[in-house]
């Protein structure tokens, strides 16, 4: 477990993920129950007019939240909200980012984003951690 004292405004927490693989998405489909075939089957993706299969938005959102997991002994994620800005394709390399914007009483306000290798934000939003 990490401690909340490590948080400071303007110092982002960052993690870069391995390139997105088909197996990542098959696992997420199975674990989440979201079997929309545009996430796993090439033919279905092209039928839908996509250049290839795309990651579940919720896969990226789920990954992004892990930046906060080490702190759950002192805080919990009270609010977490994102917009899905761009599609994530196989082989994309995502960097997950969270930066502390402000501390208001017992709440830590963060901006969060998942950015691809072209520096485009594919997921962007905010999170509030509430201290116990």
């Amino acid at each position, binding site marked *: *477990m990490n401690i909340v004292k490590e948080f400071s405004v303007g110092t982002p927490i960052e993690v870069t*993920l391995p390139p997105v693989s088909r197996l*990542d998405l098959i*696992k*997420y489909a*199975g*674990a*989440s*129950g*979201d079997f*929309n*075939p*545009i996430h796993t089957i090439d033919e279905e993706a092209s039928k*839908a007019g996509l250049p290839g299969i795309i990651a579940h*938005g*919720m*896969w990226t*959102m*789920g*990954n992004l*939240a*892990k930046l906060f*997991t*080490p702190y*759950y*002994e002192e805080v*919990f*994620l*009270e*609010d*977490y*909200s*994102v*917009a*899905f800005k761009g599609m994530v394709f196989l082989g994309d390399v995502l960097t997950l980012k969270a930066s502390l914007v402000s501390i208001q009483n017992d709440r830590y306000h963060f901006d969060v984003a998942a950015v691809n290798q072209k520096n485009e934000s594919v997921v962007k*939003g905010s999170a509030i951690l509430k201290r*116990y």
Partner: protein
Amino acid sequence: MFESLMGTRSTPVKNIVERGSLKAFSKAIGDESPIYLDESVGKRSKYGCNIAPPTYPRVFDYGEIQGFHLPNVGLIHGKQSFHYERPLLVGETVMCSTSLEDYYERNGKSGLLGFLILKRYGEEPEGKLIFTEEQVVIITEAVREGMSS
């Protein structure tokens, strides 16, 4: 479109935060923290047991809003938010339901887009709120035409 269904809530469905499902989910999002998976770490934690990752409610069954049917292809997940009163605990029972909050249309690059706002609720069996979820689903013109024909 959907006006008559606005505000109608589905009958709550009983769900359980199952350890096996939680493990598969944690692996799938690359978040295999001991706070989710290691029983002894859970026991020693402030929760007294393991907790679930914040986006885990994706796996729950929320029931169906009567008369509300969406195609499962051609929809775009635009936005997603979660609000928690407290984390979800492993093994607990969660009563889940959903309602249609709003629907509106806007002009987009690919024609007239429909925006559906769906809300989801997770409550203790006694009715106390644990979390709410809100999603914005975008329906493209092509899909909407298919629905009304």
